[in-house]
């Protein structure tokens, strides 16, 4: 009862699109492909190098949540305020042969929470002896704190206000003057921005954030005229679509780049292994019992080999790239479920009349195998191939998660691995884990639905309704 299943490859694809699940799958996967295709517009060409060059991310906040978190929590979480040299107004004074160059910038701080970090930088081009630099921080309530007073030489100097204890002496004094005690832990990004810095320096935000107009001054004292590029970064707590990781990298770019890698790896692996398996399985059944035995023995053998441990072993000892990994994966998957399917179908086909006929008019066995047999087998493997794509994506992700995959490419597994190693699970940096995970799940879902759609078409049992 019922109509026979379509056999042409194009036919099957068309049929798949007609079903609800097929449509859903196409939509989801289409989005992924669009993501991958949009990369050239989105991110710089040498992104991969940049991902691994941690120093290049210094102007991004570390462990920042995605921007849209603001809308969900209702708190106006701070975004990064980057005062580059063009934000600074320059005034010069000359007093008896000495030059005082003052760079002034101001910003309005209206957020509901403190910044995550503060940094001051200055790039100078001085010949001769170092000059004296004063960095002054002026709060809306008029309080002035001298962040730095010392000598700088030529080149780029970075002042890690939040991290460097040497820079926090004045801040400590500020707290002492305000509260009468010296805090145990000095968190400049909180103290400088709070209405009433208590002695412990980590009061609740929102009500205590000092909103208003802040001024930052870089004052350079020198013998000669100098030119400098000051910079002051007030790091926020949110950034971008997907936040940042511990190393300040924009996770959205990383996730974006993960898409084509995952799709390419998964699809190539799934299709290549399916093809190989079908050819081997069919060939075994086609060319006679001796070959069949051989293929069966090989299949038994491969069945027992634990693929993952061996891949791990290989990855540790011989460094792998994503391509060599692909190669190994294919090698270990030469025989599998698809070869069994191919084998049983080939047995059925062997008996058929037109095969007998073709043999009589002299078609070579090999040619018949590739022209008649294998194309008929392929449709039955579609559902499996679709399902294998995410399986292989996860295989690569497993290795990357352990830190064993391609050391350069930002794959989703690698991002998850970084997150895990940095303790994101135990510290609640959920965006670092959940967003890449969501991406992988979306791809899985897409291919699962696709596989289901294919299965419905090719598999008679699911067709009857």
């Amino acid at each position: 009862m019922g109509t026979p299943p379509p056999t042409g490859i194009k036919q099957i694809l068309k049929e798949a699109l007609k079903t609800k699940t097929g449509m859903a799958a196409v939509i989801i996967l289409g989005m992924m492909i669009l993501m991958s295709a949009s990369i050239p517009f989105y991110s710089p060409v040498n992104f991969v190098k940049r991902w691994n060059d941690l120093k290049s991310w210094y102007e991004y906040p570390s462990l920042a949540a995605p921007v849209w978190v603001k809308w969900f929590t209702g708190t106006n979480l701070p975004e990064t305020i980057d005062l580059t040299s063009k934000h600074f107004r320059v005034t010069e004074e000359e007093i008896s042969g000495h030059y005082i160059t003052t760079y002034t910038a101001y910003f309005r701080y209206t957020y509901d929470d403190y910044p995550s970090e503060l940094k001051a930088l200055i790039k100078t081009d001085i010949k001769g002896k170092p000059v004296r630099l004063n960095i002054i921080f002026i709060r809306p309530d008029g309080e002035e704190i001298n962040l730095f007073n010392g000598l700088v030489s030529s080149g780029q100097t970075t002042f890690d206000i939040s991290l460097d204890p040497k820079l926090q002496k004045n801040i400590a004094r500020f707290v002492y003057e305000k509260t009468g005690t010296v805090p145990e832990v000095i968190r400049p990004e909180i103290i400088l921005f709070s209405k009433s810095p208590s002695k412990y320096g980590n009061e609740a935000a929102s009500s205590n954030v000092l909103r208003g107009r802040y001024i930052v001054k870089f004052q350079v004292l020198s013998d000669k005229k100098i030119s400098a590029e000051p910079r002051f970064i007030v790091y926020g707590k949110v950034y971008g679509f997907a936040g940042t990781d511990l190393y300040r990298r924009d996770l959205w770019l990383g996730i974006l780049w993960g898409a084509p890698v995952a799709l390419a790896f998964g699809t190539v692996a799934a299709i290549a292994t399916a093809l190989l398996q079908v050819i081997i399985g069919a060939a075994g059944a086609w060319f006679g019992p001796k070959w069949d035995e051989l293929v069966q023995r090989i299949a038994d053998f491969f069945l027992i080999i634990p693929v993952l441990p061996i891949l791990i072993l290989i990855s540790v000892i011989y460094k792998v790239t994503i391509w060599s990994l692909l190669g190994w994966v294919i090698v270990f998957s030469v025989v599998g479920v698809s070869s069994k399917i191919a084998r049983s179908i080939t047995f059925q086909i062997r008996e058929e009349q037109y095969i007998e006929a073709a043999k009589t008019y002299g078609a070579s066995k090999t040619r018949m195998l590739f022209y008649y047999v294998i194309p008929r087998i392929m449709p039955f493997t579609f559902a499996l191939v679709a399902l294998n794509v995410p399986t292989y994506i996860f295989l690569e992700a497993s290795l990357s998660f352990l830190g064993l995959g391609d050391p350069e490419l930002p794959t989703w597994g690698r991002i998850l691995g970084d997150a895990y190693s940095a303790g994101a699970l135990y510290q609640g940096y959920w965006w670092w884990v959940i967003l890449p995970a969501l991406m992988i799940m979306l791809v899985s879902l897409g291919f699962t639905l696709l596989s289901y759609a294919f299965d419905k078409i090719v598999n008679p049992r699911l067709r009857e309704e």
Partner: protein
Amino acid sequence: MMKKILVTEDLVLYYRTSRGPVRAVDHVNLWVEDGSSLAVVGESGCGKSSMAYAILRILPRNVHSYSGKIIFDGVNLMDLTDEEMRSKIRWRKISMVFQGAMNTLNPVIKVGDQIIEPLLIHAGYKKEEALREAREAVKNVGLPEYVLDRYPHELSGGMKQRAVIAMALLMKPRLVILDEPTSALDVLTQANIMNLLKDLKEKERLSYIFITHDLALASELADYVAVMYAGKIAEIGSAETIYKNPRHPYTQKLIGSVPTLRSEKVLEFIPGAPPDLVNPPEGCRFHLRCPFAKDICKRREPPLIKVDNDHVACWLYGGE
């Protein structure tokens, strides 16, 4: 006039499929006289097997319609509950021999255990007595006793078929439905089985419904023949009438297409393709392939018209 052991009236069995309901058994009326055998013949896919399932109420999951009357020994089977059907009718009164005995035996259970199952379940026999009966039964079909201890795959096709027949007769039913019991067997074994069936019919006074697509085969066993086409009965009458003097154009073509060994016969064939059971033609199902189709054949379905000892569903024989 002999008593009729089975009469169906307006028997309907449609299946639900994605393309629409398949009208496998479409208002079928037939009857079986007590102690006789009725051959039900027709092309593949015309609904013959479905009719057997309809009688025994073995329905698949996707049933669309199931109605009509099945009067067996005076009782309308349709009135019985599923449980009554199962415990009183199946196997005890009506049993069945399926197409392709290769698959009708459970591969993981010994043949003997399968044969005695109905005795244990329906008649409350102890295993010992049941096995004794089983041994008798397999002897009756010409099998050695050791087959009871074997698994189905250890027996040949012919042996399996005999075993299945023995199993069907074990509870001495009144009616045995045989669905293509020999189609998967070689000619020699086929002949043996047919002889066996003839023998048993004599000895045990059985009534058969013998379903087949092979007219020649049917002629060996049939007292009456019902010709099915597209889910409906085209013609039903005594074997003599059907073979010597078929009235329905379809029957005539069928008889004409059977090669005979001796006489010079021009083989006929029936043009066109078997009808789609989802969208059967309007009016008489056969009219598109019928050389005598009239205007009324295209519009109205003919009822079964009695002509002498024959019943034909054809407008050629009146009934307007």
